[in-house]
């Protein structure tokens, strides 16, 4: 790998790193896990840079989704962990003291979604991926993205105690 490749990779990270971090946070709900996910994904991208650089952003989203799924599966497989340092504080998102209550309940509602629906909402509506790119990132069909998105939004609004149903329409 040449210094030119390295420089191109570093430019990619400088331009898109924050966006990937925020997407990871949307997917897993914890900043520390999000940082770990992104770092893992960046190593994967670096290793495959020559083949993925023409669509590195799309590839990065796919890797993020997969890494989050892998992490979730590992968590499910561990019925009892005597000492798991990186889970000790993973009881929920870091709370920004300046966040309004409305913002917090909206974020909490997002976290009630099933994992795939949550990923669809994060990628499609919070990161403006197209239906096709969202489908590619998740390894599903465009039709599944559409139906998943519709179900996610409906679920956010229609649950009996849905916080979004209580968010005032006008401030």
């Amino acid at each position, binding site marked *: 790998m040449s210094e030119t490749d390295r420089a191109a990779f*570093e430019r990619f990270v400088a331009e898109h790193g924050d966006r990937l971090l925020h997407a990871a*946070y949307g997917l897993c709900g914890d900043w520390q896990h999000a*940082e770990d996910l992104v770092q893992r994904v*960046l190593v994967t991208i670096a290793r495959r840079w020559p083949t993925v650089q023409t669509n590195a952003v799309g590839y990065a989203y796919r890797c993020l989704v997969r890494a989050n799924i892998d992490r979730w599966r590992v968590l499910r497989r561990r019925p009892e962990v005597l000492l*798991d340092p990186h889970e000790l504080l993973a009881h929920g998102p870091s709370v920004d003291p300046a966040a309004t209550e409305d913002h917090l309940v909206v974020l909490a509602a997002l976290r009630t979604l099933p994992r795939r629906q949550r990923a669809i909402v994060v990628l499609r509506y919070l990161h403006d991926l197209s239906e096709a790119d969202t489908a590619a990132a998740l390894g599903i069909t465009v039709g599944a993205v559409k139906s998943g998105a519709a179900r996610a939004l409906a679920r956010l609004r229609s649950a009996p105690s849905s916080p979004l149903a209580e968010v005032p329409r006008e401030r």
Partner: protein
Amino acid sequence: MNDEQTITALRQATEHATRDHHLDPGAAATAWDTAWPAAHRRSRGRLVAAVAASVAVTAGGAAAVATWAHHRDSPPAGGGGSACSLTSDPLPTWARTGFSPGAYRTPHVMGKDGRIVAIPFIRLRVHQPPDAGNKVLWVSKAGYGPLRIEATLEGTSRTVVRTLPDGPGPSYVDMPAPGCWRMDLSWAGRHDSLGLRYYP
């Protein structure tokens, strides 16, 4: 509330939650060095060959090629950008007490001589939230006694010393500045060294 209003509310909440969070500036370099440590040395080897082929064989030229060859075969000084990188390789068997099998790949840093492991419980930061702490579990292969940590911030001469009177084990280790801290560790007549990265 219709779909558009729901999406708007989600965007506003997410923008508020993420606006002050940025990727670590060293993330790209760390990722690249982790991905390509051998390639970095190979690319320098190709440069050696190119220089050897193009430089006339004079006494000075031969000495220069010999110098390049020596550098090619030597590991990068200080381990390069990966000196403070965590690994998800399985913990050594002597460091697994207390961990279930599913947690054997807990991120950690192994000492250069393989005598001690540092397992951060949390992303280490200079400024942690009030309810968090820079908890690090130190596990030594052998030997127990007070653990002396002499830490030097990479690229500087700034050094701090920490002593854990109870020796290798759970501890809180704070550093005064962000960056890669190279740590020389001494306990019970033993010595090793490793690096831990502290974020802002």
